[in-house]
């Protein structure tokens, strides 16, 4: 799968440092399972974390620290050693998603937001003021103009869309910050299904869409 849109370096560093929201971590993991370009950068960012850890001034451990740890591991049974499981390798976006979404995409209890746009909110993912949701956008349908109070990550699962930035197809990740005002439109002959995580509310810029925002809860 040829992936052309990637996570920003600043986002990769935040992911490696562990400061992104749970929802962002889910999208970044899903994207990177297929994207070697981002995986390589993630690997370097993690090496940076390791190197910085080594440079930290050591703080003496408590006197009983080591004996505590030794007594815990001595009490370990064979079961305590975490067995190694080869990571499952996914070949397409839908199989990446199957880990987080309970049903096949066409069997999900989609909720209609407005004509041509349906959503499915992923439950149980902590995202502060933001959210993690799947959007299904029918061909030719535009998402109203909006900016973001925080950041927004969009991962295309099926189909494609275009906006002011470019053409996004399955596997591509759009990494947008608050300064970006965009109006995506689904292209092609089948619905564009995206996984979208925000870490704050979106801000619609048109009058009509500002009126419907409280109703659709984006």
């Amino acid at each position, binding site marked *: 799968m040829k992936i052309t849109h990637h996570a920003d370096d600043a986002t990769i560093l935040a992911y490696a440092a562990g400061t992104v929201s749970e929802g962002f971590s889910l999208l970044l993991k899903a994207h990177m399972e297929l994207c070697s370009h981002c995986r390589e950068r993630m690997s370097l960012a993690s*090496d940076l974390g390791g190197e910085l850890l080594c440079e930290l001034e050591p703080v003496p451990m408590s006197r009983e620290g080591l004996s505590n740890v030794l007594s815990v591991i001595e009490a370990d049974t064979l079961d305590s050693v975490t067995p190694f499981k080869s990571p499952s390798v996914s070949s397409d976006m839908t199989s990446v998603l199957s880990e987080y979404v309970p049903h096949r995409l066409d069997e999900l209890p989609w909720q209609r937001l407005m004509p041509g746009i349906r959503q499915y909110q992923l439950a149980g993912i902590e995202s502060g003021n933001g959210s993690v949701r799947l959007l299904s956008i029918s061909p030719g349908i535009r998402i109203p103009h909006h900016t973001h109070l925080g950041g927004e990550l969009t991962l295309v699962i099926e189909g494609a869309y275009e906006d002011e930035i470019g053409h996004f197809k399955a596997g591509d990740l759009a990494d947008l910050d608050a300064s970006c005002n965009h109006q995506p439109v689904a292209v092609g002959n089948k619905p564009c299904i995206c996984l979208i995580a925000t870490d704050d509310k979106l801000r619609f810029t048109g009058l009509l869409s500002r009126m419907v925002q409280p109703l659709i809860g984006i």
Partner: protein
Amino acid sequence: MLAVTKLFNESENMAAIPVSDTRIWLRSVAERRDRHAFEQLYGYFAPKIKGYMLRQGADDASADDLAQETMVQIWRKANHYDPQKAAVSTWVFRVARNLQIDRMRKQKFYELTLDTDVSSNVENLQHDEQLENHPDTDRLKKLIGELPEEQIDVVRLAFFEGLSHSEVSCRLSIPVGTVKSRLRLAFGKLKTGMGEQI
């Protein structure tokens, strides 16, 4: 108890520990459940992990507990470490970071699995020397040392104080865009310096 005291005395000089030693210790733990090698790892890493937890906002007792718990995880998961994929420090950092997110932020974190089965890789290696440059930590250390202060400061706030981009922006009273551009500049230098086509 004698061994414990000896270790504490040694830990004062831990800065001199070469990277290859930590790798040998971790592999001994993975392959032979080597208790002595584990104590060496503890002496080197536990005080640093405690420092990391303190910087993340834990009090002294909690930071000590979290460092101990990280060491227990290192013992239990040692067989997940793949010397071909990452430096020991990288792997230890990830274990500590995940524990910190779980215990201090009470948040789930979807981590990218970079590990592969270590047993199959070990068989392919005749000599430990073949692993010397995975990755080139000396080069990375040098590049980090060359980063301008304003860039490494932002990197440290993210990695050690657990601050998001907007939190770093508030802390330093600079726009979020500036935080991100400093991070990009710093990371760009590391990428170029490590010779990665990424």
